[in-house]
């Protein structure tokens, strides 16, 4: 160990990456060059590549060696029985999309179902009676309320993974990539599919190839609904009423939270450019990535027919048609290609010609083109550098990351390895200029105080107040990743109150092993508490300034000084940054 350390901390390890290819990740972390101790380096890694340190973790990572720890994280897939046990309370995690639809049923859908089965007559039943009958029906048929799927399970599992999971880098990256390929539970079509979207299109690919993730998101129903590609279709001759883009008006025929299908639904045929545009602007090339409006229209034409397996009877009908040998329908899991909706004319995308007569494979080729484009390498490099290094990352770093991305064919673990080996990354440990998102604030607080998360709902309400409704951000841009977008008066007051309430034991569903509610009064003096909680919350950092404010604020005769001190540290400006 000492040998390696003297040799400049070069650790060479083999990481097996998704896709089966094994290749060497040569990690040489230049933190000494930036004047950091091994402890400080460990703390910096845990703040940037994890959701913050747990008690004693800085020492553990320093002991293991930062490079060794990072190499393990870059491999991912660490065995984690503790986490598996905790995730058992979320049954939807192991259900297929169709099973989820069967089990999690909204009141509106339940009412219609009961009506059609003749067991409920809404017109002739009092509200109280209706509620009772519906509850009974749920009980008998093993149905869960729809909102439980996203309020309890989707949101709950995210918090549990961030707080308790061992695969920290993968989880941090899952947040990053979900935000990059944002979808939201606020979209009606996407709502029931966000859980499988994260599970299948994002999390498995965050240390794999960019192209794989891009393809998985492009074909996932959550994305196809959210960005309207399900509505985009070639017009049959003579029936063309084009609908262009989302802004032109008239793309949405979606009903709302409880709407029954309208009696007469006017059929719209035409291109919807929404996904095609965001695919280039937000997912790959970037807004200045060198595509034109013509490219947007052409990509939209390529993607006509990319749709979704419906639920219920319509699904059965489609499956029957496929079984009977219908060649216009191609099913891949929840993805459905409808050849008759596909525009088979010739197209040209970014200067590449697609001859007429193509099918679903055209879309795959367009995704190849976009993933391999130099603008994509730059755009992804910039976003990763902004997330992991600084709001305004140095140009040289972006260029290096883009170089790795291009050279490795979009190998995301390799890009992260390049980032961690840059001096720019380690130089940041001194300024700590990245503000924590509300979720990062919450997760790092809970980790530092060794929390046990039993219910996530109360925490989710705090997250909304702080400006980050989890899985509930509507714009396809995702949350902007710079400090000013997270900081405003209301949000800061909420952050401060969160810290004080958490430490005071006032957030339900959470207990803190390092700050138990039941404890003898005045178990600590202010100075003792500053030492204990300073080490847990702001490890390897100079806390003298904060400590002096804390001493001024907490009176000598205060009760539970440990809670008050921890609250002030959690709410301090220092703890808002990583």
């Amino acid at each position, binding site marked *: 160990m000492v040998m390696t350390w003297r040799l400049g901390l070069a650790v060479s390890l083999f990481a097996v990456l998704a896709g089966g290819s094994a290749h060497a990740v040569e990690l040489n972390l230049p933190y000494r060059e930036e004047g950091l101790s091994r402890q400080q380096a460990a703390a910096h890694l845990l703040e940037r590549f994890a959701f913050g340190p747990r008690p004693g973790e800085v020492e553990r990572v320093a002991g293991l060696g930062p490079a060794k720890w990072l190499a393990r994280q870059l491999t991912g897939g660490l065995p984690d029985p503790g986490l598996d046990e905790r995730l058992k309370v979320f049954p939807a995690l192991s259900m297929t999309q169709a099973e989820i639809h069967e089990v999690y049923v909204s009141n509106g859908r339940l*009412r219609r179902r009961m009506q059609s089965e003749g067991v409920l007559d*809404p017109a002739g039943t009092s509200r109280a009676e209706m509620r009772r009958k519906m509850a009974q029906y749920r009980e008998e048929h093993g149905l869960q309320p729809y909102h439980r799927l996203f309020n309890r399970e989707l949101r709950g599992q995210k918090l549990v993974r961030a707080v308790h999971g061992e695969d920290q880098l993968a989880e941090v990256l899952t947040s990053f990539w979900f935000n990059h390929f944002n979808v939201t539970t606020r979209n009606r079509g996407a709502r029931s599919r966000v859980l499988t979207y994260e599970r299948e299109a994002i999390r498995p690919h965050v240390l794999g190839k960019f192209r794989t993730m891009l393809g998985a998101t492009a074909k996932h129903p959550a994305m196809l609904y959210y960005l309207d590609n399900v509505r985009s279709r070639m017009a049959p001759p003579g029936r063309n009423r084009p609908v262009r883009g989302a802004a032109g008006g008239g793309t949405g025929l979606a009903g709302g939270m409880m709407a029954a299908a309208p009696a*007469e639904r006017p059929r719209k045929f035409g291109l919807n450019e929404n996904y095609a545009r965001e695919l280039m602007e937000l997912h790959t090339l970037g807004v200045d990535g060198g595509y034109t409006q013509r490219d947007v229209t052409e990509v939209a034409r390529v993607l006509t027919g990319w749709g979704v397996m419906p639920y219920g009877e319509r699904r059965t009908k489609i499956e029957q048609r496929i079984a009977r040998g219908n060649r216009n329908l191609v099913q891949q899991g929840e993805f459905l290609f409808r050849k008759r909706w596909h525009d088979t004319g010739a197209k040209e995308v970014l200067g590449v010609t697609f001859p007429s007569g193509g099918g679903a494979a055209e879309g795959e080729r367009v995704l190849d083109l976009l993933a391999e484009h130099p603008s994509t390498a730059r755009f992804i490099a910039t976003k990763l550098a902004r997330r992991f290094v600084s709001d305004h990352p140095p140009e040289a770093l972006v260029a290096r990351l883009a170089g790795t991305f291009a050279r490795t064919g979009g190998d995301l673990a390799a890009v992260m390895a390049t980032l961690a080996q840059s001096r720019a990354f380690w130089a940041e440990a001194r300024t700590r200029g990245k503000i924590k998102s509300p979720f990062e604030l919450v997760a790092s607080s809970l980790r530092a105080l060794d929390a046990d998360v039993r219910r996530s709902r109360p925490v989710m309400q705090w997250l909304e107040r702080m400006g980050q409704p989890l899985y509930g951000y*509507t714009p396809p841009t995702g949350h902007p990743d710079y400090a000013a977008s997270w900081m405003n008066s209301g949000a800061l007051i909420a952050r401060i109150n969160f810290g*004080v309430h958490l430490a005071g034991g006032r957030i339900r569903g959470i207990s803190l092993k390092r700050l138990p509610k039941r404890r003898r009064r005045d178990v600590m003096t202010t100075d003792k508490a500053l030492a204990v909680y300073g080490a847990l919350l702001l490890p390897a950092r100079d806390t003298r300034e904060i400590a002096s404010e804390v001493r001024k604020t907490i009176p000598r005769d*205060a*009760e539970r000084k440990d809670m008050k001190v921890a609250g002030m540290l959690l709410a301090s*400006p220092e703890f808002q940054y990583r």
Partner: protein
Amino acid sequence: MGWTRRALIKGSGLALLSLSLGGTPPFLRRAAAAAEPLPHGRRKVLVALFQRGAMDGLMAVTPVHDPALAAARPNLFMGLRQGQTDLDGRFAMHPAFAPLLPLYREGRLAVVHGVGSVHKTRSHFDAQDYMEMGTPGVKSTPSGWLNRAAGLLGPRASSARMVALTDKLPRSFYGDRPAIAVDDLQSFGIRVPDGPEASERFRAGFASMYAGSAKRLARRVGKESFEAVEVLRKTDWSGYRPGDGAVYPDSALARRLRQVAMLIKAEVGLEVAFTDAGGWDTHVRQGTAAGSFADRAAELSGALAAFWTDLGPYQDDVTVLTMTEFGRTVEQNGSLGTDHGRGSCLFVLGNEVDGGRVHGTVPERLVKDALEDGRDLPVTTDFRSVFAEVAGKHLGIPRSHDGLVFPGWEGQRRRLMKT
């Protein structure tokens, strides 16, 4: 210094504040606030009220002599005989809005009918977002229309210029200008579990901690935040009595509007207020003179009428604008309710409003051919032309700036204000 401070802390918790903030302790500040002129003075205030869930505009303000509407709603149609109150010989108002009727008769309350978005989405979330962002069809707009409007209101901004009486910051308020969301004025600010005195102490501690931070952003936002907390805490809200004998009903909306009135009268520099009320998504058993629609309407009208009375002499400063994301189907559905539609109506209340009239366009007969997509009240007035008129005229934003408030919009304001 350290010794002196310690001695003072021991002697009195409050003395600490005067040292660390250089100010006066809160009880003294409150006493002083009663005597001294407040820093901001009276301002014009726009109060925006979002009716979430999509209000059935055709039940709120009904074209009562339209046989096509009566036929489409055999169980829900309300004519004059079912209790609707005639407004102008053509339209009549739902009886649960009765508390607003005098304001309509006095010419202070206007109705605009057939209002909605140019974007056809019938999803609540999308439509609410588009309306609050002020950019129908564009989801990537980072800011809300009220924040952009507030940005055009001149330099002497109070940190309490934009206050939302909501549990989280509404999209309308997203943006660069400081905006706060408060669910309860009395509890806004730093709240610690040990009571108000401890909260004061912590507030002072955090103000000082953030003022001394090495991070520029933390310093700036900290300053803004603690100023807003200061401004809102200057007044002793607990002793508030509504003016002119106003009696607020017991509802969440009434409590919120009461607090808007408190803020206005406290002259803390409020210029844009926002609040919302849910429950308008009446898919099932919507009811007629009684029922779920009537309950929501009574809650809204009772709270709004009390608010207006309470304002008293401040009425001249205030305009209230209601909004809802879309309307509901002309035809009733199979559950004695209505589904998501397109056009609805909204209310504008204020002394400068060209009131006592139903503005806007509703087809003579709501027959299928006259409806949008064969099912809905057509959107004949773009909500932006109403918002731009009301906010623009009341707050003094010139027409030439409408494109800054509503990017990409090239329409005209719809005349609704007298001036």
